[in-house]
């Protein structure tokens, strides 16, 4: 069953066309990754799914409903959560408050359970729960961004470069956790990464975005084996 369908989406920033007709689909329970170079439009696609900015042309369908022109807070309330580029932790709120903010659209009776769940995934957040978000380390902020997204009990989780700027050990841990979230909780995941190696190993399927267009798609392992992809995204280590 298709959870998310992006059909012929064009997105503009003023006169700049960042997405030039993107098509892709994500099915329930999948981990799908989108890889691409700097400026390809990956973050733009995630933001467009959330209506910030809304697509100029094309259609975005979530759970069978057209959400293309809906306001962001309504899209999010349908069950889409994003851990955005740059993490965007609320710097002057505590870790706990950041997690509470994540639960804005979730029914309040689940709050305690959900909090436990996030603290189990990321024990460090429990230790740091009174600390201000802005003073966390990069890795901790990344965990908080993912935890905050999970607090809304999403059916579709959008992750924008969760490995960016993190030590290899932490990257491994984050990817491990993403797999757990997908397996244990059944959350569908759409993952944007430049770290193509890890992302393609983790994902069931992948798309390659070049200059605002999807140029290739296939199973994660198949893409990983593809010579073109190796040359473009994997040479020089992972």
């Amino acid at each position, binding site marked *: 069953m298709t959870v998310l369908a992006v059909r012929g989406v064009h997105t503009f920033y003023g006169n700049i066309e960042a997405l030039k007709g993107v098509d892709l689909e994500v099915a329930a329970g999948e981990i799908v990754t989108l890889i691409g170079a700097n400026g390809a439009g990956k973050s733009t696609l995630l933001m467009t799914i*959330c209506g*910030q900015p809304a697509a100029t042309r094309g259609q975005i369908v979530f759970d069978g409903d057209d959400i293309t022109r809906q*306001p*962001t*807070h309504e899209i*999010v*309330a349908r069950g889409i*959560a*994003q851990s*955005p580029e740059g993490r*965007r*932790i*609320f*710097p*002057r*709120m505590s870790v706990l*408050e950041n997690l*509470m*903010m*994540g639960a*804005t*659209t979730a029914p309040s009776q689940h709050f305690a359970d959900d909090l436990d769940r996030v603290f189990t995934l990321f024990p460090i957040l429990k230790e740091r729960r009174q600390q201000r*978000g*802005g003073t966390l380390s990069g890795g901790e902020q990344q965990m908080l961004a993912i935890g*905050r997204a999970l607090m*809304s009990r999403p059916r579709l989780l959008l992750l924008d470069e969760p490995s960016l700027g993190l030590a290899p050990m932490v990257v491994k841990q984050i990817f491990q956790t993403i797999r757990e979230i997908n397996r244990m909780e059944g959350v569908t995941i759409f993952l944007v990464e430049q770290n193509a190696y890890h992302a393609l190993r983790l994902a069931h399927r992948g798309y390659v975005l070049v200059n605002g267009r999807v140029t290739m798609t296939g199973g994660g392992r198949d893409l990983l084996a593809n010579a073109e992809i190796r040359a473009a995204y994997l040479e020089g280590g992972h």
Partner: protein
Amino acid sequence: MGWRGGGGACGGGPAGGGMRLRRVGSRNKRVDQRNLEYFLQQLINGLTLGGIYGLIAIGYTMVYGIIGMINFAHGEIYMIGAFIALIAFLVLGLVGVTWVPLALLIVLVVAMVLTAFYGWVLERVAYRPLRGAPRLSALISAIGMSIFLQNYVQLAQGARVKPLAPVIPGGFSLLEVDGFIVQLSYLQVIIIVLTTALMAGFSLIINRTSLGRAQRACAQDMKMASLIGIDVDRTISTTFVIGAALAAVAGMMVTLYYGVIDFYIGFLAGIKAFTAAVLGGIGSLPGAMLGGVLIGLIEVFWSAYFTIEYKDVAAFSILVLVLIFRPTGLLGRPEVEKV
């Protein structure tokens, strides 16, 4: 001025208080300004005025906190609040509601609700269409709204000052020394209690409720706030509405306190409350309250010990000094913390 006469340095308005003292001084022997009683009286007057400034300052600081812009029409919102209160008092008088507590309550509610509506419209008309436009556009639009509202009230209500007969006369005489009576008027008690209660309640809202959390989230990162499902437009509207309602209370208090208002009062009060917000640290809620009280105290003490003619200069010198030496204000956060 001084129509309430007698009583020497009795409650009265803070400006009136200072002015009347000078008269007393010139008529009789000079009041010894080093007296503790004199000081006490000024403290009471200053706190009263400071509470009023603080209420207005909250509106400036909240709007700045959330959209990063100074709402230059906020002083006019306060002025409109004062007019609505005045009209409500007169109407209640006409229909024969004479029991003061009831009249006060009705006027308070009416002024808050109607003024809040003005605040809501202001945001809709002057700010929302310009969201994302260059800041200068919104600034000009706000100044335009300010001029428009002033002229609108001038046309609708006339340019002459509007008097209101004292609604709550009397007060406590706290102590008397050598014919100098330290007075705490009932009105001052009401003003201080009400502003304190509103500020406390308001701090509670900001710190403890989901509305407050939504506001803080918008203030810290508007885009992220929308991504977690907060209706940003509604939150901004609510901010304007709450700020206007608090300004309305200030307007009502001033109407009662001074007994006269005109269409131009929003300008000075607005700049002083803005000064208060900057002094406390613009964007900081406790800062706005603290700044309001300080500006009120500075103004009253300046009038009492130096020259009343320069009391506005005193307040604005503070603004300039703060902007030069401590642009983040007393409780503001340094700008570098943008994560």
